[in-house]
Each structure stands twice: as structure tokens, then as C-alpha cells.
């Protein structure tokens, strides 16, 4: 199902375009990209909070534009920011959220208790949310998003601002929910390791376009083997010709003082390279073998390194073409 589509941003630019994918039932689907890549815009369209200016999206066969209330009933949503009410207890937040779906407090009480227990919030359920820690708040958001028994849940950068333990803990809760409830999970993240460890399949989005889609392994394999990073001493001769001639080397690129050597056999190449460079009179300052990570994938696909927070966002792409199909339980 392909629907040409685009979504203008605030300055008349196109926030996402050429975005087209399908999510399967019961999988954890990751939407990976730097800040400003169009992740939140896509999630807003899929969760009926924004209408695409063209194109469309279907969730369990329902059109997000024309059947938005049916779509809303089937999905849960965890925002980047905590949206729980500070002055209310965790349990009150859940009961009120259920009410917005037309479910009475009596009807969801047991399910709410069950979710609070699964999120390890049973003890804190009747405390005000303003007393919760950052990790507890994220778990409560997850519990609130699950209170109406959705078929699929959208997580918009769910671990943003959590410390490493908090993030690892949160991943466990997500995996647990997927196993115990057969939930489909659609999540955005700009953490590569998170997508790598948590997701069954990943779409990499950059400047409003999907540039790769596959399992983490497929994406890493697409980069092709290991990378040897070789740094030469200042003023040393250019080792490019030497490196290109080594066995198993497929390409050499220079990044600053460092030469990135694509090769099939990283570890065994180290001693050979160092010896050969020494014979040629090139002073080697350091060598590292890098196993392919999603960082590599990103660099390979986009030609630029994965931007960290605080760097200027890229100019938004122009054009159109978006479609999405999400299958719930």
C-alpha cells in the first residue's frame, strides 16, 4: 500500500517525505534517526494527532484520517514528555485515562492493578506522581498507555533522559509487555544501541526520508564486514596506497588524521598493516578494529556521522511520498 504523501513543517518545509513502511503484528519496530529527522511527525500522523497533507496510513486496516476514533481505541501512546498529572496518584492517572476511552473505574480496576504490578509500581500506586523518580514516571506512562488494552503501543523516544540502568530496565518492561500481551510496539529512538538491542526491525530515517529498513543484523551486514581505524603520526606519509593493497581490504577513506579501512578480517589485518607501514617508514599512532554497529550503518548510509543533540538540524527535504501500515495484535 503506497500513498504519496508529505507533511509540511512549520516553516513551509516538508518534515517527512518518502516515508513508507509496514509494521507486522507482535513485532517491536524501531524508528531510528537523529533529532529533527521526522520521527515525531510520523508518530503524530500514525496516532491521528496530525493529518498528512497527502498520502495516508492504515492501522489494522483502518484509515488514520477517516476512521480516527477506531484507530485511537486500538492504540496506546507514550509521549516523549511525561504527561501524567503531578497532583494525582499513579492509580488515579490510570483510572482517568481509562475513562477517556469510555471505560468505568470498576471495569478497569483489576487490569490497572495488574499493570501497576507488572511495572513494579504497586507500592507507589497511591502516591502522588510528583513524588515519582524519572524511571517510575516512564513506567507509569507505559502503564497509562496500556490501560485500555491497546493492540499496539507507540513509544516516542521512551527512554529520553533516563540513566543507563533506567533505560535497560525500561527495555525489560517493553519486552515483558510484548511477551505477556502479544503487543505490537512502534518506537522511535535516537539511541542506536537501543534500537539494536530492542527492535526486531528498524527503519532508519534521516532528513525526513527512510534510508534503510531491516533487522539490526541485516543493516549491520549491509555495511560489509569490519572497519579498521588507523591513525598516523602528524607529518607521516599517506598510507592509502599501502592500505588498499593489503589482502581483504575493500575501501579506504580518510577522515581527518584517521584512515577508515573496510575489510573482511579486522583482527588479522592489524599486525600485517603495522608491519607493512613500519617497513614503508610510516609512523602509526594507533589502530582500532570496529565491529559494525548501527553507527557504522548510519555513516555508511548517509555519508555523515550520526549527529548528537545540540548540533544544527539538517535542512528539511522536499518532495513527497509517505505511507504506513501498522498491524496490531
Amino acid at each position: 500500500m503506497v500513498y504519496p504523501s508529505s507533511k509540511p513543517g512549520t516553516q513551509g518545509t516538508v518534515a517527512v517525505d518518502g516515508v513508507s513502511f509496514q509494521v507486522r503484528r507482535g513485532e517491536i519496530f524501531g524508528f531510528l534517526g537523529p533529532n529533527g529527522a521526522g520521527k515525531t511527525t510520523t508518530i503524530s500522523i500514525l496516532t491521528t494527532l496530525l493529518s498528512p497533507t497527502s498520502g495516508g496510513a492504515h492501522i489494522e486496516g483502518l484509515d488514520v484520517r477517516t476512521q480516527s476514533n477506531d484507530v485511537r481505541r486500538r492504540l496506546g501512546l507514550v509521549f516523549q514528555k511525561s504527561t501524567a498529572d503531578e497532583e494525582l496518584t499513579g492509580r488515579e492517572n490510570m483510572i482517568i485515562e481509562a475513562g477517556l476511552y469510555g471505560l468505568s473505574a470498576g471495569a478497569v480496576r483489576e487490569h490497572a492493578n495488574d499493570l501497576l504490578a507488572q511495572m513494579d509500581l504497586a507500592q507507589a500506586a497511591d502516591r502522588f506522581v510528583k513524588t515519582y523518580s524519572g524511571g517510575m514516571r516512564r513506567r507509569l506512562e507505559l502503564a497509562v498507555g496500556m490501560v485500555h488494552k491497546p493492540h499496539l503501543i507507540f513509544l516516542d523516544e521512551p527512554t529520553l533522559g533516563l540513566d543507563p540502568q533506567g533505560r535497560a530496565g525500561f527495555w525489560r518492561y517493553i519486552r515483558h509487555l510484548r511477551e505477556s500481551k502479544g503487543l505490537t510496539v512502534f518506537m522511535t529512538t535516537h539511541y542506536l544501541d537501543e534500537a539494536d538491542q530492542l527492535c526486531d526491525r528498524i527503519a532508519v530515517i534521516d532528513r525526513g526520508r527512510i534510508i534503510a529498513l531491516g533487522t539490526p543484523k541485516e543493516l549491520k551486514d549491509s555495511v560489509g564486514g569490519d572497519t579498521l581505524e588507523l591513525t598516523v603520526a602528524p607529518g607521516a606519509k599517506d598510507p592509502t596506497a599501502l592500505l588498499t593493497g593489503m589482502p581483504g581490504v575493500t575501501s579506504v577513506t580518510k577522515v581527518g588524521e584517521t584512515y577508515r579501512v573496510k575489510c573482511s578480517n579486522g583482527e588479522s589485518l592489524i599486525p600485517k598493516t603495522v608491519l607493512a607501514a613500519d617497513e614503508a617508514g610510516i609512523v602509526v599512532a594507533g589502530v582500532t578494529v570496529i565491529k559494525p554497529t548501527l553507527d557504522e550503518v548510519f555513516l555508511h548510509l548517509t555519508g555523515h556521522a550520526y549527529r548528537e543533540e545540540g548540533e544544527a538540524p539538517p535542512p528539511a527535504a522536499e518532495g513527497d511520498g509517505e505511507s504506513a501500515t501498522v498491524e496490531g495484535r
Partner: protein
Amino acid sequence: MLIPAFSLIRREYLRWIRAPTWVISGLMSPILYLLLFGQAFDLGKLLPPGTPAGALATVLSGAPNYFSYFAVGMVAFASVTAAMFSGTGIIFDKQLGILQRTLSTPISRRSVFLAALTFRGMLTLIPAFLVVGFALVLAYVPNVAGLSVGSGVNVVDALQFVVAALILSIAFTSLFLSFGFAAQRIESYFGVVTILQLPILLTSNAMYPVNIMPAWLQYVVGINPISLAVNVMRMSLFGTAGYPYSVGVYLLGLLAWAVLFVGLAFWLASKALRTDVSPKGSALSEAIAA
């Protein structure tokens, strides 16, 4: 059907009951006016000695003394002052993302609006009735002026009084809610509210009798929704003598204001709560993009 709207009302109620700052912010001004201004500023004492007793009653349209006349004005003033906070909740909900979460559920946009109007309208009525009670109690305190009510007040009069207070609170709650739906920031909201506060109050008959005002001002004061409500309230408590129109006419005028303000609020709410993108972009899509 009703569960979603009731849930929103319950959330607002729980929030409010746990941070009841309204007790100070909403009631302070009317109580100070009753305790200080109303005690000090007695129009009756300005009349020259020997003025016939009926003269003051004529100026005050039947009220037995200035304090009683003034206290009824303060009932409306308390209600309008409380209504000025009506739009704040919706702005915080926008900024904290709570509104977006609400809109991602199947709750109808009409329910979101009606829940806000119902809860905020009720909150606006509380200070009005507290002021009535406070002014009535003052009448039993020695050496302090209080609200004295005519002996002929019956159930119908009391009902008229309550209906006028109710329509007034719906009207001003809607007016300030509509600013809340339109504004993105709390600063711009209170900017507008502060500009409106004094003109709304001073062009009403809450504090001064209309018939001693210059003619041009009388026209403005005559159509002010506060004046219309206060007229009905005073007629209910002190009798209808000296009023050019009947209670029904004033109630209809007040109702017209209420319909206008509710319509304005509903229109702005629908604009703020829409999720599709108009050429200018909706408030919500801007909030999401931000």
C-alpha cells in the same frame, strides 16, 4: 457516553481540591471590598441632613442601605474574578502535553469543551455564594454594615437570583475559557485578562447606582452583562420598583451575552482542538512541532 467527560471533570476536581489557591486568589478581593470599601464608602452618609428617607431608597433602586446595594454587586464581581482563572488550566494542559494525550483518545472534542465549561462554571459559582453568605452574616455583627434583605423575598425571588448568578458565571467562564483556548502562553492570557478586568467591572452597576451616572455612561453600563445580572439579583432581593424593564428582559439580555460567549468559546475550542492542518496550522500542530 458521559464517562469521558466525567473523567475530565474528575481530573480537574482532584487537581483543584489538592491545590485550592482559589480560596485566596478568588475570594480576597471581594471579601476586602465587603470588609473595607463597603464599610467606609456609604453613599447614604453623603446625603445632606434632613433628606427624606425615601430619597436614598430611590437612588439605590429600593435597597435599604448602600452596603446591601453594594454587596449584591460584589456577588457578581466575585463570580467574574473567579472566572478569570478559567482559561489557565487549558493552557497548562497544552504546555504539558496533557491535551495532546487527551486528544489521542476517542473522547469527542465537544466533551472536552463541555467538561471544561461545566467544571469551571461550577467553580465560578462557589465564590458568589460564599460572598452572599459572608454579607448576610455581617448583618449580625455589631457596628458592621451587612446585607439586609426585604421581608417579601420568596422562593421564586431566590430562584431568580440563582439563575442570574448561574448565567453570569456561564457567560464569563466561557469568555475566559475562549482566551485559554486561543492563547499559547500563560503570559499572553493574563495580559488580555488584566486589560479587561477593570473596564468590565467599572462599566457595571456593581458599585455605583446607574441613575447618578452621566447619560453616555448609562448606555454602556446598561448593556454590561454584570449590570444585567446585578439588576436581576437586586430586583429579587429589594423589589422591582424604579427599574425601567422587567426581570425577564434583563435575564434575556444576560442570556444573549451567555450564548454569544459560549459560541465564541466553542468556536475557538474547536479551532484549538482540531488535529488536521489548516493553511495557518492549528494551535495543536504548532504545539507538537515546537
